[in-house]
């Protein structure tokens, strides 16, 4: 009887996990489809920056690592490295952070703005 009780309790717990319609991983994949299309190669190393890389920009440290890992999962087999030192960089910046970043990086990158606070950056200067 205890096993059946615990079985029901765990089923309730399973039904409270996530949601049937809004799996965050799938949503993240949809968000990054445009980046994948624009990148001129299918394998290699790409930079990745977020609000936390922009001095003065606000960010939520709890989301930082989660978003980075989700992006790596989505972009595989591209290898993501933190920073903007690569020839190509994905910028996951809100509009304020992007403005701040632009002020200090004028002329260094070709910027391709995408939907949902995403930008693809191509480094112009070595």
């Amino acid at each position, binding site marked *: *009887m*205890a*096993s*059946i009780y*615990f*079985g*029901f*309790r*765990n*089923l309730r*717990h*399973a*039904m409270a*996990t*996530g*949601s*049937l319609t809004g*799996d965050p*991983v*799938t949503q993240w994949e949809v968000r990054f489809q445009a980046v994948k299309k624009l990148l001129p190669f*299918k*394998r290699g*190393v790409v930079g990745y920056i977020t609000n936390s890389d922009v001095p003065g920009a606000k960010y939520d440290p709890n989301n930082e*690592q989660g978003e*980075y*890992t989700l992006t*790596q*999962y989505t972009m*595989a*087999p591209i*290898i*993501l*490295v*933190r920073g903007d030192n690569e020839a190509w960089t994905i910028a996951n910046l809100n509009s304020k952070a992007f403005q701040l970043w632009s002020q200090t990086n004028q002329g260094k990158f070709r910027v391709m703005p995408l939907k949902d606070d995403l930008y693809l950056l191509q480094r112009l200067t070595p």
Partner: protein
Amino acid sequence: MTFLSILIFLPSILAGILIVHLLWRERGWKAVWVKIFLGIGLGLGQASLLDFVYMLWFSNENGFFLVQLALSAGLLIAVVVCERKDLRFTLPRVRFSRLQIFLLASLLIVMVLCALSAVNIWAREPHGAWDAWMMYNRAARFIYRDQPGWLGSFSRQMDPIFHADYPLQLGMDIAWAWQAVGQETQRVPIVLSGLFMLACAGLLGAALNLTKSLGQASVSLLFLLGSSLIGNEGASQRADLPLAYFFISTIVLIYLFASLRKPGLLILAGFMAGLAAWTKNEGSLFVLVALVALFIAFIDQNPWRVLGWYLLGLVFPLIIVLYFKEFLAPPSDVLGNGFTRSIQQALDLSRHILILKSFGADILSFGGEGFGIIPILLAYALIFRLSPSSYLRPAYLAIGLILILQAIGYYGIYLITPYDLEWHLVFSLGRLVFQLYIPFLFLFFTIVTDVEKALAVK
């Protein structure tokens, strides 16, 4: 797509069952069930190992499924040739007692609830839990999406948080199944996790049904499935359940060897231990721990021969693991502290206290909320009494030593971890206890008096 994803693994599973049968010719339906559940894991394990070798040589080809088909066909012919004189099928005649019918009916309800829990989790988190998509499904994507450049998955440029050093049991199986299916569908890792859940629960039940009784097997499964640990953890697509499966497989095979004295069982045990090392880094510790435990447990029964058979089974998976670790994988982060700092941490008394407290709390509350399964099992043992067989003493000793030494190994890893200890304990200890819980359940129910006998006496 779900059906196709199941179908794609069937030749590998058949190959696994046939390998088990060729090394252990026991007849009878009770043994057949054990062979089936051993064969599921062995089949998935051999497919992963062979695909790794295949990808090293033919990374531009997509023919691995044909290799599995050929292997299963070859093994089938070998079994038919070996068994041609004794090839006969007789259906088992089973009569259940009232107690067994009651236990089986309860088990059926619990199984349905457990399956519903798992299906719910798969529907809500198709990519699995955090670790699952970040490590195992990510590795599979690297291998599948860029076959010619798949070795780039282990690039030193990859951030260490993705654990590119983790062995590839799940990643290879998922990747070759995607190649065979022809698309990257989440149904494949879901089916794979379902197969390991089935094999894990099935093996516990089938092994106890063979060595003890049907009632004992049913009670053990009520404890396993009723807590729904297996349903929720298995559906998460992490590697802890497959690892627990390879632990219990090794342990069941050691137990059967102690009972039947067939060398093939120890060869299979070695292979299963090797597959544990191919599944997760904790499996490498398990390989060594099982070696030491076997030597001590069989010290007065030609231990070198026992170790020889175990090593014979271990050699192929171990070569693959060592090759992967030596030539492909980036260094492991857990051992990244360096010798001096590790010694300093090991001498820090506060770390010992924190780890012991966490172990105690986790073990006592494991599987429940506030009140865990272990105290319930202790109460069960007091009511039903222990009745170990003296001739199985080496088996109990070997299994007990394996569980204790493995737990000590985990303790040692926490001592030297480069991560914040409290975070590391919270993040991982529950899953480490889970890995040992399923083999512990097997040991427990082999020692406790059969439920049929205990209730008949009362």
